[in-house]
């Protein structure tokens, strides 16, 4: 008689769980293969590509005006800033000087985009940590910005407001008033964010000292945006390589040295305040003039390679266009901040608990469609 040997699990065997692609805390379709030992995360392996649409390849068959609409769908929370990146690249290639009015409006819109993106970050980050009320407070205030977008751009989230050479249409006559109203309102309620989450003992205990990236590591891994600046990496494109109207405003680059979850969070909270200051300086001085430069209906870039980077809410977005002189680009490459920021997840999270993994993932503020493109 054959004796069946029962296989006994080794004591050190890892417990593998699949977080995602459908999981409440991955904010989309990111799949994390997590090796656990008890509660402790041994290693994390991100598997990406679940929402890959081939945007870069699609761009090769589209005109430059059409590409704008695809960039909305990458980092959908920084839609306006993504548009701007492509527009700036095209404008620089054609050596067009866009009207001052356009520069001002683009900057204001970009900063509003940044604020609403960080509001949503705050909302979902609170939810990741189990504070469900944050979600509603964050969305309540974000709605007001989306209303402003809707009025001027027509769209709420996927705005597609920019076009090479200027804007799709002029701002709504109400725009300035609405923005000023919003700033006044938001300055009044932003302390609620701190009351609800920042000052909470449980929150601080859970986020301080978690997922630390030192300055060297942050630079080595190419972390940008608030994630990089929390580690002390001065990487704000708005400051170092100003585009649009950023050279006309004074603002502070938020830098911390700790590089943990808490300071990534703080960096975003402070950036919201800085963004409001930037809008303050511009909103009353929008110059009169045309809302778009004179452009030919068919845009053909001269042969060559063009690169433009902008500061989205998550970091540096680079647009690299290779043109062979046709109306379609020969090759387009996006350097997306989320893809780069996701890379050191294993480094940050291994050795911590499952709950920390969720907090660290949340603090990177990942937008999955931007990773997969």
């Amino acid at each position: 008689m054959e004796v069946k040997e029962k296989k006994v699990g080794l004591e050190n065997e890892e417990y593998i769980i699949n977080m995602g692609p459908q999981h409440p805390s991955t904010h989309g379709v990111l799949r994390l293969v997590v090796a656990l030992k008890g509660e402790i995360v041994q290693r994390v392996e991100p598997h990406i590509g679940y929402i890959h649409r081939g945007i870069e390849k699609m761009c090769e068959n589209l005109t430059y005006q059409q590409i704008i609409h695809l960039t909305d769908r990458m980092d959908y929370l920084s839609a306006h800033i993504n548009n701007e990146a492509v527009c700036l690249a095209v404008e620089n290639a054609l050596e067009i000087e866009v009207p001052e009015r356009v520069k001002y409006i683009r900057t204001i819109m970009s900063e509003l985009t940044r604020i609403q993106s960080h509001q949503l970050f705050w909302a979902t980050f609170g939810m990741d940590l189990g504070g469900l009320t944050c979600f509603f407070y964050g969305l309540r205030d974000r709605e007001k910005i989306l209303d402003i977008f809707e009025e001027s751009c027509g769209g709420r989230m996927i705005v597609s407001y920019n076009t090479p050479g200027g804007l799709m249409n002029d701002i709504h006559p109400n725009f300035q008033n609405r923005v000023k109203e919003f700033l006044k309102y938001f300055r009044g309620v932003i302390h609620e964010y701190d009351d609800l989450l920042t000052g909470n003992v449980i929150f601080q205990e859970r986020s301080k000292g978690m997922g630390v990236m030192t300055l060297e590591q942050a630079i080595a891994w190419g972390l940008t945006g608030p994630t990089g600046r929390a580690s002390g990496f001065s990487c704000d494109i708005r400051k170092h390589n100003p585009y649009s109207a950023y050279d006309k405003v004074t603002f502070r680059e938020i830098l911390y040295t700790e590089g943990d979850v808490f300071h990534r969070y703080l960096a975003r909270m402070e950036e919201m305040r800085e963004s409001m200051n930037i809008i303050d300086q511009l909103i009353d001085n929008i110059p009169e003039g045309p809302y778009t430069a004179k452009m030919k209906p068919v845009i053909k870039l001269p042969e060559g390679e063009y690169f433009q980077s902008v500061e989205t809410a998550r970091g540096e977005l680079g647009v690299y266009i290779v043109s062979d002189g046709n109306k379609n680009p020969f090759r387009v490459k996006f350097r997306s901040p989320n893809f780069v920021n996701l890379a050191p997840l294993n480094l940050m999270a291994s050795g911590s608990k499952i709950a920390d993994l969720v907090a660290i993932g949340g603090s990177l503020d990942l937008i999955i469609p931007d990773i997969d493109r």
Partner: protein
Amino acid sequence: MEFSIYDFSSFTAWIDQSLRASMSPGLAVAIEMLIIGVVILIFYAIVGLFLVYAERKVCALMQNRLGPNRVGPGGIFQTIADLVKLLFVELVPIKNADKILFSLAPYIVIIASFMAMGALPFAKGLHAIDLNIGVFYLMAVSSMGVVGVLLAGWASNNKYSLIGAMRSGAQIVSYELSVGMSLVTIVVLAGTMQLSEIVQAQQYGWFIFRGHIPALIAFVIFIVASTAETNRGPFDLAEAESELTAGFHTEYSGIRFAFFFLAEYINMFIVAAIATTVFFGGWMPFNVYGWEGFNKVMNLIPPFIWFLGKTGALIFLIMWFKWTFPRLRIDQLLTLEWKYFLPINIINVLIMALIVLLGWHW
């Protein structure tokens, strides 16, 4: 027969006598048990449905929104509609699950909460069974629920469920100690474990006022520890939505899920009811010594209203911190219990014993 809403003992005695007059004592007892069972079951369902509705409304209040407002006036029938929906939901069979344990788990959870309900003194004379070790009994049955949670996690054949069950085991076993010790503090003060006597002893002042600071500390620890024991936020690690999807009940659907869901709310009610009984004078009205007129008005309010009112206030407190605090991490949770609550509790009991010995309480 005289009937009064201030004292139910004559009413229950009348039922007992009329039953015994018409049938054999054995049958009378059986019928009485049946009546009590049905009454508690109905009360259980009503409290469960009401608390689910209350939680939605409280959470909506905290979150700046309206909450359910479509089904019935103010949405009061929303939970009933949801329950009906849950009844019709398919019970999804789980591949490779331990079928017996899987279907047994929700019943264990619900039976544990049902048993605790029987020992609560709702009003004078409205008390299904008055055990002389009431406090002890409540602690014993309320910790039975964890068995159901562990079974659910183990039998589901799901990795998230197992982690949830593991966490729940560690958490409930730890916090059981704190709940017990904080109740012991009051038992020392009251000198009895019988719930009716504990309530009666608070006629001239609730224990939270009479027991000086130790009683207050015991209350704070009790409310925190019992929230942890009932798996509610910020201690809902066993079902931590953002980490474990739904923890131990990830694989449950339909009425089995409804059982877990209902048991959570009933456990919250039981915890609040125990706190009311032990710290806030149970069904005793709020009296201030010397204020005759005030006391008279307070005494006019029926005892079960007092009981439900106090319990409701505590439930609101528990909901309040669920909806405003982020969740703790498992190691912080255990640190809180073993490094802070337990030592504080032990010293607290000793101080309380000293106070009772020296007669410093009033």
